[in-house]
């Protein structure tokens, strides 16, 4: 059964038709929430809430459009709401304590993993808008068109936002994460 049919059934109240749709998109939604919030439990909460809110809005969803960008937009909104909550400062303290310094002289495989973690740490120094466009385009590997769909903006705007975000990221890396600029060539 194709996704559009499942969505139509779900929109008419069939919860069993919604479950396979959730299974298809839960990884992408969870990962975006995790990137934005940095905590797997918070990300799980946001992911669940995303699919519940989407369920309640299915009757207004335009079936001619792809579902995943719409879901990711809901997830990003919910994650941003949660980030601004009163607990954000304490959560940042906890995250900060997890950012362990990079050791030198590690194997290349684990160095690549540390690069990803350090890259994420660098991206998290940017403002929420820059983070969002970088996560969508590079971490979730969405196309420019899909990214534009999630952000509710034009593709040209996505490109210029990306260009500015990358410039700011490069400055952060140069200043605070110099080891990221020294990846071993593969």
């Amino acid at each position, binding site marked *: 059964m194709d996704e559009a049919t499942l969505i139509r059934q779900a929109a008419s109240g069939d*919860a069993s038709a919604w479950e396979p749709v959730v299974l298809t998109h839960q990884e992408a939604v969870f990962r975006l929430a995790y990137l934005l919030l940095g905590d797997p*439990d918070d990300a799980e909460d946001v992911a*669940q809430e995303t699919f519940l809110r989407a369920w309640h809005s299915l009757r207004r969803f335009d079936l001619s459009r792809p579902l995943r960008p719409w879901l990711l937009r809901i997830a990003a909104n919910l994650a941003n*709401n949660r980030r601004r909550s009163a607990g954000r*400062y*304490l959560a940042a303290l906890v995250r900060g304590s997890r950012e362990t310094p990079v050791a030198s002289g590690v194997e290349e495989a684990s160095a690549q993993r540390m690069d*990803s973690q350090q890259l994420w740490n660098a991206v998290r120094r940017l403002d929420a808008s820059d983070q969002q466009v970088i996560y969508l385009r*590079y971490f979730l590997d969405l196309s420019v068109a899909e990214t534009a769909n999630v952000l509710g903006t034009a593709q040209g705007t996505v490109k210029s936002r990306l260009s500015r975000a990358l410039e700011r990221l490069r400055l952060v890396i140069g200043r*605070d994460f110099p080891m*990221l600029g020294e990846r071993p060539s593969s």
Partner: protein
Amino acid sequence: MNASELDRFELALRASAAEMAYPPTPPIAAAVSARLRPAPRGIRRTRPWAWALVALLVVISALMLVPPARAAILEFIQIGVVRILRGPVAPPEQIPFTATPGAPLAPTALPMTENPSSPALTLAAPLGLAGQSTLQQAALKTGFPILLPAYPPDLGQPDAVYLQSLGAPMLLLIWLEPQDASRVRMTLHEIAPGSWAITKYNPPVLQETTVDGERAVWAEGPYMLQLSNGDYAERRLVSGHVLIWTRGDITYRLESSLALDEAVKVAESLRPLGADVPIPPDLERARPLVQWLGNAGIAVRSVDHSVEGALFDSAVQAAVIRTELGSADVVFFEDSAESDRIQVTPLSSADPARYLYRIEGPITTMLQPRTIDAAFPLYFQVGNGMFIDTSSAELARALQGMTGQTLPASP
């Protein structure tokens, strides 16, 4: 960054991002299905360890705010976000001058002034200070009321405003000498917890005093000061006189060449922008807007609760603000990124004496569209986390500068 550098950077970024280690995806589909069933209500996880961690962090934060009577080795005084160290501690190595107001920093020597009791403050390098702003813009972003001194009487509004938000906001207000704009007369930091922490190393003069009857600390330079926020730190030499106090959870730091009693007078003269209009405690979000209107020369008469918040599922506060130009209903949202996408569509009405408007927004703002039915034309604006409507064209024009986005008012 030129095009080829951008391409290489993008490739490297994409390669690293592809190797990101995510936690395993939890069974979200099963949890959602369970919550969609009529009963029992969904899966709620309890995380007792998280509450224990919160409790521990609160205890640690509370301890940091209470000055110990005597530390075993190192004595320090903590007031708000400022910690003053005394005793056998080596100050951090001097690093380049940070351009916050202060005497120019020589690499190895303390600055020499002709009159050490009245050290000169210079705005030696305004470049490098991030977050240049205005009082109007800062009032919308600080999240706490901006206070301005009413003393000395000739002080006026600050010549420069900086708002730096790394985690939480820190506001810096700078007044220049009237006769010499290259010299700083006074600076005032207003620091929210969770933004910057300030550490001062062995000020030569340090005494406790009071501001409005509350504990305050007075320090005289020269001494090293460090501003830090996570991994980011700035250091500079302070040669002026500094008064530090708190009000609520905001730390205030006044740096000048004034003597203690004059500095206390300045501190005790602080008043919020738009202080004369009483604002209900649960409509505190309206304060920046009231301040903004006041700065724009529009007298605000009253602030009361508005029922218009009921239009939106995610409104946090709603106020009706009455001014000399008319009234506006203002709905406040937590997330401006979503509320700024609210759309208003004028509708045709069968009754020519009625005006209909359809309000729609993202589903995290409102689950379904609503309609406003008014007896007069309305002007709508969204921006900066606010939805505003007013029947006053003049007030709408005045508010345009603040929200930056006006929606069509007529079909």
